[in-house]
């Protein structure tokens, strides 16, 4: 059994779909943060069978929109004094700015300097995002 100390202050991201923790690690820019981060893969889960967990020590300032975009079923626990003081609910964000990039070579984002890559959630309830400039759908491939 792998043991990782519990946090005194920080965030625990629980119920991450098994295998997607490193993607979250990258998109949240955790490699650039000067704090202790534990990534636990393939932990046992009653709910999911297998799950990933990320523990971030010392900070509670992370981009919840990014998490909502990747998987709005992730549980976000805010820890202080070793206790869960808040559970944050995640939503699919209406817009995403500079989280994902438009891959359409015909899009203005392919040549314009300093342009924000902005995606908007489609209104048809299908949980898809389209670039605001060219309207091409984001595909995670």
């Amino acid at each position, binding site marked *: 059994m792998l043991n990782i100390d519990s946090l005194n202050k920080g965030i625990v991201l629980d119920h991450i779909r098994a295998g997607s923790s490193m993607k979250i690690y990258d998109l949240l820019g955790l490699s650039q943060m000067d704090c202790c981060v534990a990534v636990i893969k393939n932990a046992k889960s009653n709910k999911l069978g297998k799950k990933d967990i990320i523990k971030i020590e010392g900070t509670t300032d992370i981009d919840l929109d990014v998490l909502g975009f990747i998987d709005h079923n992730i549980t976000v626990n805010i820890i202080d004094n070793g206790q869960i003081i808040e559970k944050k609910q995640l939503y699919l964000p209406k817009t995403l700015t500079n989280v994902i990039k438009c891959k359409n070579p015909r*899009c203005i984002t392919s040549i314009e300097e300093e342009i924000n890559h902005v995606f908007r959630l489609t209104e*048809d309830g299908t949980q898809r995002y*389209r670039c*605001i400039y*060219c309207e091409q759908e984001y595909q995670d491939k």
Partner: protein
Amino acid sequence: MRHLIDPLDLSVQEIDKLLDLADDIAGNPKRYSQVCSGKKLATLFYEPSTRTRLSFESAMLNMGGSVLGFSSANSSSAAKGESVADTIRAVSCYADICAIRHPKEGAPLRASQYSKIPVINAGDGGHQHPTQTLTDLMTIRVKKHRLDHLTIGLCGDLKFGRTVHSLITALSRYEGVRFVLISPEELRVPDYIIDNVLKAKNIPFEEVENIEDVISQLDILYMTRVQKERFFNEEDYIRLKDSYILTMDKMQNAKPDMAVLHPLPRVNEIALEVDDDPRAAYFDQVQNGVYVRMALMMTLLEVEHA
């Protein structure tokens, strides 16, 4: 300040009002000959165009205004690597309104984010071309006396044809409209139009490959050119370029009051023999384009009516 980037930037009521104004201009062009006196239009054309640029310039000159601009990326600072955002900030100091055509999709939206003057999308890549749509709507209204309860066939390159995307988007707001989308499989309407417009609004449409099977149903036939400049692969272009050619033989099965539209330029997709048929409306579109751009610039510049 308003821009026209997407056909839906104007409400149905605003489009009706704008088309009424365009009709009035068509009937009384002299009354509008000085309404934009002292105003300047900048035409920022990063991509070659004959019709659209001249139509904009003619429209402004018809109203007593003046024009400045460039007609290819090579003759602008884009060749030096200047961004659209920087160019429009400069142009905002020189002109009162601008029309921008750009090969990259979303460039006019980018310009509008930094502009101090109204920006009109004069075509962005294979994306949208809203002033062509206003031209098309005016022509359809003149020919059919309505914009609702129509069966519209769109034929040819429906994938890269930006006028097609804009026209479907604009007409989708009118009651009783039905679309017949005629194209080879490779050039079908993009899914963002199918999903966001047609399916989202429950608008009846069918996708077919054969024009002969459906031409008798149509009130409007909107022909388009397979555009060489939109293909990254020359082989694909050559394979698809002659997919649909409208001839008098095919026109025999069409309704006697069907109108044939085309955003022009054409290559060979409408045989010259069709030009003499009273149902050919594509040269009327060119004239209507000037009137509707006059009406649009008057509206965006908020100038007083004559």
